[in-house]
């Protein structure tokens, strides 16, 4: 969110910082980022597998979410900002009261999408020894030799999680729509 204002702001330096962040994060694979956080920066700070995973996943998804919010904010008609400013509102007040509430609503579908991607991407943390769903699944598969069955079950678990989550997003979307009753 902060990056968002950086990106939209006219300040060239802030804009540039965000540009680099987005370029680097979106331009490199998540697995590389996770490995850098876990194995790569041990000289500076040693992170537990859990925190390395958390850091990599948040920074990774943050980049995509920044772009989702940017798109949503820019999709709001310019007239909204003009009307707000013409009533004497400051830029930040207009953002907070007028633009962001509308933009947030518009960003829910792509945001839900991104969370689903993030949920599934999180399986990659298994490769830094973190025992998440996927990691545990791999373990069981190796030990029991029931490879197909285990992976199908793991897949089903993800499916259930995602379906549950999509259902939830749909509910939120419907709920917000009631406000405006098209």
């Amino acid at each position, binding site marked *: 969110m902060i990056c968002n204002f950086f990106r939209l702001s006219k300040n060239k330096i802030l804009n540039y910082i965000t540009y680099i962040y987005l370029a680097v994060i979106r331009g490199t694979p998540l697995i590389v980022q996770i490995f850098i956080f876990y194995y790569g920066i041990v000289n500076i700070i040693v992170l537990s597998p859990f925190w390395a995973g958390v850091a990599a996943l948040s920074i990774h998804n943050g980049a995509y979410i920044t772009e989702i919010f940017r798109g949503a904010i820019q999709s709001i008609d310019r007239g909204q900002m003009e009307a707000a400013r013409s009533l004497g509102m400051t830029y930040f007040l207009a953002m907070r009261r007028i633009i962001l509430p509308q933009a947030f609503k518009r960003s829910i579908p792509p945001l839900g999408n991104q969370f689903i991607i993030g949920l599934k991407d999180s399986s990659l943390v298994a490769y830094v020894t973190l025992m998440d769903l996927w990691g545990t699944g791999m373990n069981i598969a190796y030990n029991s030799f029931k490879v197909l069955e285990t992976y199908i079950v793991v897949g089903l678990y993800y499916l259930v999680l995602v379906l549950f989550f999509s259902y939830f997003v749909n509910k939120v979307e419907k709920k917000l729509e009631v406000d*405006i009753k098209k």
Partner: protein
Amino acid sequence: MMKIKKLNKFFGELHVLKDIDLEIKRGEVIVIIGASGCGKSTLLRCLNFLEIFDSGEIWIKGEKIDPKKDNLNKVRENVGMVFQRFNLFPHKTAIENVAEALIHVKKYEKEEAFKIAKKLLEKVKLLERANNYPSQLSGGEMQRVAIARVLAMKPDIMLIDEPTSSLDPELIDEVLQTMKSLANEGVTMLVVTHEMGFAREMADRVIVMDGGKIIEEGSPDEIFDRPEKERTREFLSKIL
């Protein structure tokens, strides 16, 4: 009330406003007419600093406004603007639209703000629509809410930019009626419109713009019945 001296505005290479001089007195209703692209809307937008002029001076109530130094938010509180496309806030009901700036800009108590908003909606004859969202209102109703929203700020002057151009013909009249009643109450207005009936009936002065310049200025009778400039005659013959 408001004085404009030698105002110039460029969009890149394009010279949109050329040495505009204009003085608006308190309570005056001024109608600006002219072909599209002549700079009418830009002039209005400059007066409320949605566009910043490139050279010239704008004086409001005896004070010269410097867009770089002065707090433009304060200036805008007193210069209301009604837009062609209403620009109501779609996530707020009619009454919330009117009360919004009272609460968050003028810092009124919520209760007080809604009381004022209610009165204003009554004035534009929309009290029964107070709790409807903009998407549930007709174009004419939306524009009246937008007018009420501006009135709530008690501006010194209202800039009204083609208020009826995006309305169906049968909805135009209700908006014009609202504007007429405001004019009769002595609200200072600068209106860009193609509604010549309104101009003739309500305007104290009519200004004709062409190519970024004010080419003619006078009472409605002078402009409509005895236009001096060939360009004015040409424009009027097309529109009347």
